[in-house]
């Protein structure tokens, strides 16, 4: 299986390639990609140089243009597609049907992947993208069990890619407006979720309170580690109980599930984290290289052992195991 690694900066791209990534995904420095964070992403020149660096070392570069273009401003997204093709991208990762149509029409030979943001969660949805745009691969949403991933992979006429490590959406990706409800900024429109610009911390009654926009997302006792206030991973209250109603501040670690994903016929394994630093990239890529080597040699796979690198410092296998059912 191919290992697809994140790169938020040119330096991270080089680290990922050197650590053994088969492919790296990255985006331009604007709202066309779903990690539109300050100080991240690639200029046009950096993209061309990054692609050259990867190609010299036998790695591929997948360019994510996976927000939904703003109505009346399509040119920005069209230019991103044109420039990624011109820079020699090995594939474009797209979510919006209109943008897929544009890429398929104007760049018919360019390899296209369906972004996780397109929420193609079953063979019929994937079939739609294959028939309409000739896509070669779909990144599956993190709502499926391993047997479901296997059934989909068998049923569809394209490759599948699944997330195995990193930040975890508990809501179906590309179908969530929680962030814009609280902040006005959404993953689909702005490429951000629970953006740092809208986060504030304050002390109240001896506790550290984290806020997003005008809403309290969590409160931490002294000594408790304060997780970033991602909206769906906050603590809330209902008449029937309080706590982490949607998800705890955990990250995905599916290293232990690699044998099942290999048997399922999955083509590529994806690591989340374009917003993360070089140490994270290097640590995670090396750990998964090792796990894949163990898998190939028939040795048992330990968990990636990367608890310290995860955002909440604790991990889950998400929907892959049947516990969500």
């Amino acid at each position: 299986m191919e290992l697809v690694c994140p790169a938020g900066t040119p330096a991270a791209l080089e680290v990922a390639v050197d650590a053994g990534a088969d492919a790296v995904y990255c985006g331009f420095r604007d709202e066309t990609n779903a990690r539109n964070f300050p100080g991240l992403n690639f200029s046009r020149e950096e993209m061309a140089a990054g692609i050259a660096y990867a190609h010299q070392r036998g790695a591929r570069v997948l360019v994510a243009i996976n927000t939904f273009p703003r109505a009346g401003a399509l040119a920005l997204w069209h230019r991103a597609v044109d420039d990624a093709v011109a820079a020699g991208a090995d594939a474009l990762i797209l979510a919006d049907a209109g943008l897929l149509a544009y890429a398929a029409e104007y760049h018919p030979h360019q390899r296209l992947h369906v972004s996780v943001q397109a929420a193609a969660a079953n063979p019929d949805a994937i079939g739609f993208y294959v028939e309409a745009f000739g896509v070669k691969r779909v990144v599956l949403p993190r709502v499926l069990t391993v047997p479901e991933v296997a059934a989909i992979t068998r049923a569809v006429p394209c490759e599948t890619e699944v997330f195995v490590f990193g930040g975890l959406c508990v809501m179906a990706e590309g179908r969530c407006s929680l962030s814009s409800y609280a902040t006005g900024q959404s993953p689909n429109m702005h490429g951000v979720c629970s953006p740092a610009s809208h986060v504030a911390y304050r002390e109240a009654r001896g506790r550290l309170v984290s806020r997003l926009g005008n809403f309290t997302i969590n409160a931490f006792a002294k000594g408790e580690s304060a997780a970033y206030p991602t909206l769906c991973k906050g603590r809330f209250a209902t008449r029937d109980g309080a706590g982490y109603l949607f998800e705890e501040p955990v990250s995905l670690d599916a290293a232990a599930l690699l044998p099942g994903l290999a048997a399922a016929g999955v083509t590529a394994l994806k690591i989340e984290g374009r917003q993360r630093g070089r140490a994270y990239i290097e640590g995670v890529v090396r750990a998964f290289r090792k796990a894949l080597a163990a898998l190939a040699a028939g040795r048992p796979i330990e968990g990636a052992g990367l608890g310290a690198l995860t955002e909440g410092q604790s991990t889950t296998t998400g929907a892959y195991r049947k516990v969500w059912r």
Partner: protein
Amino acid sequence: MQLTLGPVLFNWEAPVWRDFYFRIADEAPVDVVAVGEVVCSKRLPFFAEHLPVVVERLAQAGKTVLLSSLQLVTLERERRQTAGLAQSEDFLVEANDISCLHHLAGRPHAIGPFVNVYNEATAAFLASRGARRICLPPELPLSSIAAIAKGVPDVDVEVFAFGRAPLAISARCYHARLHKLTKDNCRFVCDRDPDGLPVETLDGEPFLAMNGVQTLAHACTNLLAEAVDLASAGVRALRLSPQRCDMAAVARLFRDVLEGRREAEPASADLARLYPGAPLANGFLHARPGAERVAMEEATAFVVQGMGRRAAPPAAG
């Protein structure tokens, strides 16, 4: 401007569900009614037996009926159900997932608010495959809505105008999780909250509403103040999403404002009395946090501004 009654998003008892639609058929001045289970496939069997009679009653009352498809399709059973629905020839199917579109290509159909239509190119692409109506995602600002409506003049563009805005869908059932049940053995605990379970912040501030696998806004969308201007922007329908209140009266308020019999401001005060359980909000339309309510004068000024080429957000109030 048409008024569309969206599908009931909550787990209502089957007889309540049926009687709700009977009353809509008899009393509500809406043009279009979307029916069907959108949120959780496990709920459908409860009201399936009433579906034919409800659809017939609505059609006899002169309503255009849309059959709404499930939003998140992962199980084989859900795929078959979606494919079956898409074969319907008597009524327009409203697709809420791309997988439903797969079965509808080339035939006239509607697009629900859960399919991502954020721009005119996507709207035009879907129209080229047979979409005749498109209900846009609730988080879209007016500038986008206007550009999309302009881009697909032959499509009936619809905007979410009343009700708790649906914000997210998940493979995990939060009602079941809260009650320490598994999703497969959920005992349908979501039926205890026919208007959504209030989710508060740790400060006790109302924030969201839980509805099984779906999460909605606590605030209730109200676009009465913008209704007339949305019409000038090319929007042809407003969607009223059923809450536990007098939806026929809600529809009459929108009708009165659209036809100039009432001013938006007193009508909004009436709306707040009809649905007192949640504050009214219109932030999404004004490119602000969806939970916010932009004041009436500011809302009107923004709409006028939004018609221009540069849709600047309103000054922070």
